[in-house]
């Protein structure tokens, strides 16, 4: 299997086939990364489009010194943060509090695909995992998602989040601690 960096360099040289290959490799990871961060499928799809637009428009700024996955996740991270900022401005007036007193943003189009509409879905572990990840603070969420679902090393995560390695270690540890507490009953079920 060819390395991502090689394909990217081919695309830089003008190969549209290479671009198609990059898209096929990264469309799903970027979509899932954005979806886990933003909890909105519509937003996640938009992020994919925007990331690939940026990739094509800034292809010349890519240097093979950096790992391609780090580079593309950095773009996705920036686009997602931009989305969240925009959303904060828009939904500032719709800010509401839940039963526990935590504030959340009530979106106009709630994502219903994970809503427990049946007892079967209620027991779906995936639903509770999503819920637990959604409840994490943004920086912890980003770190654990990149590690757990995208297999990035701690060094690569540090590059994407633009922070130190020791900070990444702490972020991931805290995220795991929070998730462990949250998902403890469901982990017991797995036995």
């Amino acid at each position, binding site marked *: 299997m060819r390395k991502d960096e090689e394909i990217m360099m081919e695309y830089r040289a003008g190969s549209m086939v290479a*671009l*198609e290959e990059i*898209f096929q490799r990264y*469309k*799903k990871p970027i*979509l*899932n990364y954005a*979806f*886990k961060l933003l909890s909105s*499928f519509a937003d*996640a*799809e938009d992020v*994919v*489009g*925007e990331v*690939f*637009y940026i990739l*094509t*428009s800034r292809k010349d700024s890519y240097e093979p010194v950096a790992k391609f996955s780090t580079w593309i996740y950095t773009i996705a991270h920036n686009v997602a943060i*931009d989305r969240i*900022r925009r959303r904060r*401005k828009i939904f500032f007036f719709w800010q509401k509090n839940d039963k526990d007193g935590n504030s959340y943003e009530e979106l106009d189009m709630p994502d219903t695909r994970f809503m427990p509409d049946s007892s079967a879905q209620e027991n779906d*572990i*995936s639903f509770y*995992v*999503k819920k637990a*990840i959604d409840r994490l603070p943004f920086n912890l969420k980003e770190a*654990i998602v990149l*590690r*757990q*679902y995208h297999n990035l*090393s*701690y060094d690569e995560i540090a590059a994407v989040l633009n922070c130190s390695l020791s900070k990444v*270690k*702490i972020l*991931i*540890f805290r995220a*795991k601690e929070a*998730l*462990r507490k949250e*998902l*403890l009953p*469901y*982990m017991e079920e*797995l036995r």
Partner: protein
Amino acid sequence: MIFIHSKIKKLISAYLDNEVNDREKNLVEEHLKKCTFCRKYYESLQKLSSTLDKYKEEDLSPDLEQRIKFNFLGERYKGVAKMKNKRLIFGISSGALAILLTFVFVGHMYDYLRHSAQGRLQGGVYSSAAREYEPTTGVRTHGRLGASADGIGEQYSPALVSGKQNKNDLERFKSSGDTRWITTTDNSSAAWQSVGYAGGGSFDKPLSVSAIEGAAQEGPIVIVEPYLPATGKEDKLIRNAEATLEVENIQKVYDDIVKIGKGNNGYLAAANFNESTSGKVSAQIILRVPKEKFEETITEVRKLGQVKKFSINSIDISQDYNALVSELNTIKTVYDKIAEKLKEKKTDIQQAVRLESQLTPIAKRIEVIRNKISQYDNLIAVSTITINLYEVSWKLMIKESIKETKQHFAAFVSGLLKNSIGLFLLLAMVCTALIALAVLKPKIVKVVKMIFTKKSS
């Protein structure tokens, strides 16, 4: 022990992710063999990892995938960038507009406040605008007005005009519709004597045109042309000054004033201290100094405290003084002639007694005039400076400053409300500034971060 466990827990997390070095790896493995608590934790993290893996992966909707593939450089995502550019342009233009509006608003308010302040000054006690006289009618006026608020005296020199000339002048005077201060007298030769000074003079009533006409028919009118203002060098001027000072320590300032007086060859004419029931101390000190040292002394006195009020008053007695000198010369001539006749010894006793009796009142008059002249000389040579002092009361000052601030603020707000343009400008300025700030905030943060990271690196 707890500390070791918490440290090992962090290492276990990294160990599971294969992010530990050899030393840490050995440490964790050794510890896990011994510690059941940490082993359980290790197992729970393993379970967590497998639980998290249950999360369903999503895929792009086929239509979106098609759209993205079809439009890799499509308009939709170009549109996003375009939107960003538009936002940037909008933000920058809003900022520029806000700055422009700020300038216009500040200029407008400055102009408004300046005009209102001028209005207050003109209507208040500080009015000191010098009156201007333009003798365009040719009608001659005479006399002298009292010293104006700024202390510059206005002087008019007398000039006699015949009755015929008066009538011609009067016609021009009537046609101009102007009325001025004039003096009438029955005897032209005695006109000099009719000129008074310091409020006791002969031109204290403005006469209507009809009154002037009537006077012209009855006898000669003395109309005197205005003269250039007094220079204070050649003229006979009595100069007074009054200053009100706010000081911190009256006793110290009193000592300083005495020193200043002595230093300028003057003397302390009077001093008066007073303490009110509220405990406020005030004083009035009258200082007399030679006229040559007048300005110098005033300058020194003004430095002693905060000047709250100040005025210089010059009274011109040139005309009166000259009149006295002329009268003295005339009477002295008469006196000398009579005395000469007496000395000739040709007169008989009866005639000598008569001459003697004529001579006595003339001698008395000469003495009176001489006394008056010497009194004037004294007044001219030595100027009077009245200094009113009062101590600063801090409590009062704070109260007054709060009051003033309130008044200024109220004036500002009412000015804003009255001035709809100002209000509109202020609102527009605030709105555009807020928009610019909201739009450009991420950019500003980015630039600031960039600057700081550059500096730190």
